[in-house]
């Protein structure tokens, strides 16, 4: 039987109360939301907090709010709620692409966007999604809120800008006219971590040329965006040869490691192939958007 080591439990009902509990209990306090990263780690003694602060009742963290020019998503929003949100799917189809393949439907009833980003597992999908959408993360602390861009927030595997005594409260996605986005993952079976995955967001102007591009990879040893791949796309009209070149550059920027999910060559092949696929889909979706807005 796997059971966590003993700890004390406290439940917060507001961000202020959660921050106060974190401050009072210091270094050995951990927040729990969905619990699907922390509790397994506690069972294996990879985490051994003295205090667990439950933030599931912090209602102010659970919302999806559409505003002019941006979408605000509360950190406690469950994967299943993102997947069920019409506005999320309409503005950012990449989020639905990713959510369909994050864990399984039952786990998605508990896991949260804030937890996924804050845990920062190297095979976690939403970090890549937020990278390519150029999202910002809101972090609350004793001295108020700060807003950090994804490259600043995500420092590497299991490491973010959110300090021990702070809470991720919100993710903000900028809405861009003419944007299309897509995510695709290869996994060995439902619910497994990614063997490899790629995400892309493209903005097309009225003439059909790419004005903004972002490409990201998951579980492929690349932190942040594939900058070279994006650079060749900007200013061009989408076509297969262009996508092939961008995919080649994305694969070259990847640094996969061999593990039980596959050898390096295979993973680099996936970086190339998945990048092509998400660029195709993102371009088609951007085109559809442009057509609707233009028509």
């Amino acid at each position, binding site marked *: *039987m*796997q*059971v*966590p*080591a*003993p*700890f*004390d*439990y406290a*439940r917060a009902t507001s961000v202020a109360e959660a921050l106060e509990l974190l401050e009072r209990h210091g270094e050995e306090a951990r927040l*729990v939301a969905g*619990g*699907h990263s922390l*509790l*397994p780690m*506690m*069972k294996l003694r990879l985490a051994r907090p003295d205090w*667990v602060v*439950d933030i*599931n009742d912090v209602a102010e963290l659970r919302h999806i709010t559409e505003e002019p020019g941006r979408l605000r998503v509360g950190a406690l929003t469950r994967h*299943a709620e993102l997947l069920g949100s019409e506005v999320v799917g309409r503005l950012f189809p990449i989020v639905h692409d990713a959510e369909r393949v994050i*864990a*399984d*439907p*039952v*786990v998605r*009833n*508990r896991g949260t966007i804030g937890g996924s980003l804050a845990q920062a597992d190297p095979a976690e999908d939403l970090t890549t999604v937020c990278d390519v959408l150029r999202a910002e993360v809101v972090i609350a602390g004793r001295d108020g809120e700060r807003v950090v861009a994804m490259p600043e927030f995500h420092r590497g595997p299991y490491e973010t800008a959110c300090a021990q005594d702070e809470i991720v409260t919100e993710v903000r996605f900028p809405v861009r006219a003419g944007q299309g986005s897509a995510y695709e993952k290869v996994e060995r079976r*439902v*619910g497994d971590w990614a063997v490899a995955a790629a995400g892309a967001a493209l903005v097309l102007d009225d003439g059909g040329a790419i004005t903004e591009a972002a490409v990201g990879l998951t579980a492929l040893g690349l932190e942040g965006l594939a900058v070279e791949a994006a650079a060749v796309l900007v200013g061009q009209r989408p076509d297969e040869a262009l996508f092939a070149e961008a995919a080649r550059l994305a694969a070259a920027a990847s640094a996969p490691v061999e593990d039980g999910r596959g050898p390096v060559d295979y993973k680099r092949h996936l970086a190339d192939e998945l990048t092509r696929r998400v660029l195709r889909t993102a371009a088609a979706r951007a085109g559809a958007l442009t057509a609707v807005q233009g028509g």
Partner: protein
Amino acid sequence: MQVTMTVNGAEVTRDVEPRQLLVHFLRETLGLTGTHWGCDTSNCGTCVVLVDGLPVKSCTQLAAMTSGHEVRTVEGLAGGAGLDPVQQGFMAEHGLQCGFCTPGMMLTARALLDRDPDPDEATIREAISGQICRCTGYATIVRSVRWAAEHPAAAATDQEVTA
């Protein structure tokens, strides 16, 4: 610490260790052993129960986190009218062999049918994709859920249940 929650319609209050997982609270503290305990790693899904109507893996939730919420286990599926249509479907279509995954499968099916009374095969397969069956290969489970969808008002008599 003390937890209070509604389990199958009845309020229960118990003293628990904060580290007690919901699955062990149900099985050991309350004696509701219909909820099975399998992989312990939120993979197999045999421990699925409904919390506030949604399927969750009870091996990856603390009893403490469930305090104040409503839990439904397999023991709460049958009502005054007899077995739930899902339970009848699993009997009619041979949805189980060893029965280990069955409680979790049936609860997920109940939650699915509550929000989508007429799911197609792909929808059913997606809904149970976080739960593992090692006997039937899923085909009969899918048929069982379809049976329940097609017989929403089915109420088993005692005779049918014991037959």
